[in-house]
């Protein structure tokens, strides 16, 4: 079920009604689990079997960790849990990539190769598997003495809570990736009177505006970043479309995350913030602290730090950054282009760490704002060009796009397209700028009238939405 559909609105209202009905207050979690299963199985009910399997495996192994008396046993259970999650992910997500790397073009293969290539990618698998890993690791850490907030009782109650944690519908298919220690302690009875309506309204209106007005309209402008359409387009069109795609991917995913946050809040749960205006970043490390925060913090906590982080010398730190970003890239999709995208970011992070200070000294003659601007320009340009690998997972197409950009300077630009890309980018640009100035005195005064802005966003959502498209991150 999609957040931007009529059936979802009905589903949400019915679920909320049942959830807060005093008669059913003892069954609040059961209602949310049931609703989440309906939400997930709406288009493909068979997907529920995989979700149920994943819930059971994670509940079982994490319970095993919790009940084990020795470190060695806990380690075995935790390894089994993490491996099971990775195996499920590898089978469903990466088998086709491996098969295509071995067999080549999918149109020319049959037999086992065709079977492997035909394995469907269950929606949300990357997200709920990472949450499963978080559960197993967090229980392990808790048992090893790290202060934590998980309280595991009987297996039945743990299974029940795990089912809720993994399937909670606002974050089930595209995150934010919730860590077990950030969620379990919130599981308790909720009251209708506790709903923070103004927070919910802000998150939902801004989220739907970003998704339906900005991303869905931009999608029809950036549609042409596809072979062979871009080959005969002007360099200006190509660069503007790429800029538009940077805006689109942000608006699409940040919009989804805000909607997820707002809906979760309606049920009394707080999910982690996933975006913090990433396009104002003046360094790559800052970008990754602002973009898809729940993934970067997951990778930091469950991969980078266990690998040694920056505690084993410079060389090891670069290697760790590289490997984390490579795997982070591959997490996004089963194509080598995603791995290259991640590795490029890993390389940028390593270079920044290696050369950042020295380059800063070279440009020390410039005033600080000019240096900040140049840093911002570099980060935004590299990030935007790297998105090309998201839009064109075929690497040769991405290379041809860049070649066309260089070659097509003589072709006349499509003024309407550029105008529309600029127009739909404007809200995202203004929102980023607003973030920068929001602490100024005049901005604080203006905040008293923010209902006017939310009223305008609501109006534009109703009258100027684009054709509804699936969320980009659904494919991951």
């Amino acid at each position, binding site marked *: 079920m999609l957040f931007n559909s009529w059936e979802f609105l009905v589903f949400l209202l019915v679920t909320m009604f049942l959830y807060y009905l005093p008669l059913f207050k003892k069954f609040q979690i059961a209602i949310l689990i049931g609703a989440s299963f309906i939400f997930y199985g709406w288009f493909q009910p068979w997907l529920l079997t995989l979700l149920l399997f994943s819930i059971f495996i994670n509940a079982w192994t994490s319970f095993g960790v919790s009940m084990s008396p020795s470190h060695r046993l806990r380690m075995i259970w935790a390894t089994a849990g993490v491996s099971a999650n990775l195996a499920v992910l590898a089978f469903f997500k990466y088998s086709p990539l491996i098969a295509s790397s071995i067999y080549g073009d999918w149109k020319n293969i049959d037999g086992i190769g065709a079977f492997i290539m035909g394995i469907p990618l269950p929606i949300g698998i990357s997200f709920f598997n990472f949450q499963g890993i978080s559960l197993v690791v967090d229980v392990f850490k808790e048992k090893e003495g790290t202060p934590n907030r998980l309280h595991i009782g009987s297996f039945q109650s743990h299974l029940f809570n795990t089912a809720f944690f993994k399937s909670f519908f606002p974050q089930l298919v595209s995150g934010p990736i919730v860590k077990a220690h950030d969620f379990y302690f919130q599981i308790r009875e909720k009251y209708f009177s506790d709903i923070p309506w103004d927070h919910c309204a802000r998150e939902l209106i801004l989220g739907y505006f970003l998704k339906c007005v900005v991303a869905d309209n931009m999608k*029809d402008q950036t549609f042409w970043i596809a072979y062979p359409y871009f080959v005969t387009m002007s360099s200006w069109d190509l660069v503007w479309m790429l800029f538009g795609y940077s805006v689109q991917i942000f608006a699409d995913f940040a919009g989804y995350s805000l909607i997820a946050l707002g809906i979760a809040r309606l049920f009394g749960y707080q999910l982690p913030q996933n975006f913090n205006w990433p396009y104002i970043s003046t360094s790559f490390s800052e970008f990754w602290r602002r973009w898809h925060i729940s993934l970067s913090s997951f990778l930091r906590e469950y991969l980078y730090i266990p690998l040694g982080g920056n505690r084993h010398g410079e060389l090891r730190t670069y290697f760790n950054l590289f490997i984390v970003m490579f795997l982070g890239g591959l997490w996004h999709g089963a194509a080598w282009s995603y791995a290259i995208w991640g590795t490029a970011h890993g390389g940028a992070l390593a270079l920044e760490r290696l050369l950042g200070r020295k380059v800063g000294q070279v440009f020390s003659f410039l005033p600080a704002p000019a240096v900040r601007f140049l840093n911002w320009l570099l980060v935004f340009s590299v990030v935007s060009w790297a998105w090309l690998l998201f839009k064109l997972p075929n690497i040769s197409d991405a290379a041809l796009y860049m070649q066309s950009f260089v070659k097509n300077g003589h072709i006349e630009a499509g003024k309407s397209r550029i105008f529309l890309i600029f127009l739909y980018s404007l809200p995202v640009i203004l929102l980023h700028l607003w973030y920068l100035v929001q602490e100024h005195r005049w901005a604080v005064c203006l905040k008293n009238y923010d209902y006017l802005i*939310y009223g305008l966003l609501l109006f534009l959502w109703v009258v100027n939405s684009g054709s509804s498209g699936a969320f980009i991150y659904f494919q991951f």
Partner: protein
Amino acid sequence: VPSSTFSSKIFILKILLTFAVLAVGYSWLIKQMAVPITTGQNQYQENRLKAENYVFNRPPCSAVILGSSLSDGLKEEYFEVPVCNLAFGGGSALWGGPIVLSSLERPQVVLIETNVLVPVNQEFMASLKAEPSRSLKNASPLLRQASQPVTQLLNWLRKKIPPPVKTVDPAQAETWIQYYVQSYNQFHEKDKESFQKNLKDMEEMIRELTASGIQVIFYRMPVDPRLLQTEKLQWENEQWSVFVSRSGTTFIDLPVSAETITKDGLHLADPSLKALVPILQAAIQAKIKQ
């Protein structure tokens, strides 16, 4: 932090009030300005503009054109008889048929372009037919594509600053022709199967159209002769010939002349499109007289 306080509810009320004021004010403004909507923000919206105009404004049409982007440029104003164009870029004749069949007022004739057969796009159909969207759009023009502020702004700007007439760049056209020749010569069994399946849907659609008293004319748009030699078009045209002769209805193979100019081997430039109008118009009139 629970904020279900009085101020929190007032905040939402203020948002709703702002929304209401904007909705009323904007409705009044677009009525006053009455900007003619001649273009959409993109191909997909242009399709929706056409379809919504047909479904909700119910213009009187003796004939309806069903086709793909090849017929998209056959503008209604080129014809002397009232014609509605439901040819959709990125779509096919299969898209327009259900729209005609679900409308209360039926045309006397439909012209069906024999070209690619892209199956009906469910999302596109849902945007027109699914409830409650259909009833809401029917009740309030504000919710239709033509009322979108950005569409209004774009058309207002085009009215103020008309865009220059686009000329065909021969080099670009040649790039496209080469691309089509190459890709149309890589024609797989799977493509044939899907064409046959879509042809069955077309057969069903024709049956329903004729059962409702609508007469059918098939026509083939001219394309660059080099493309006609490709494996795909040769095979598809053979299939169409069999299909059309079996249906026993009129078929017009629109001619390619020395003056025919295509933008990319497939899509005709505006003057070449206009040149085809008299042929189609004569066929429509002949059918109406029958």
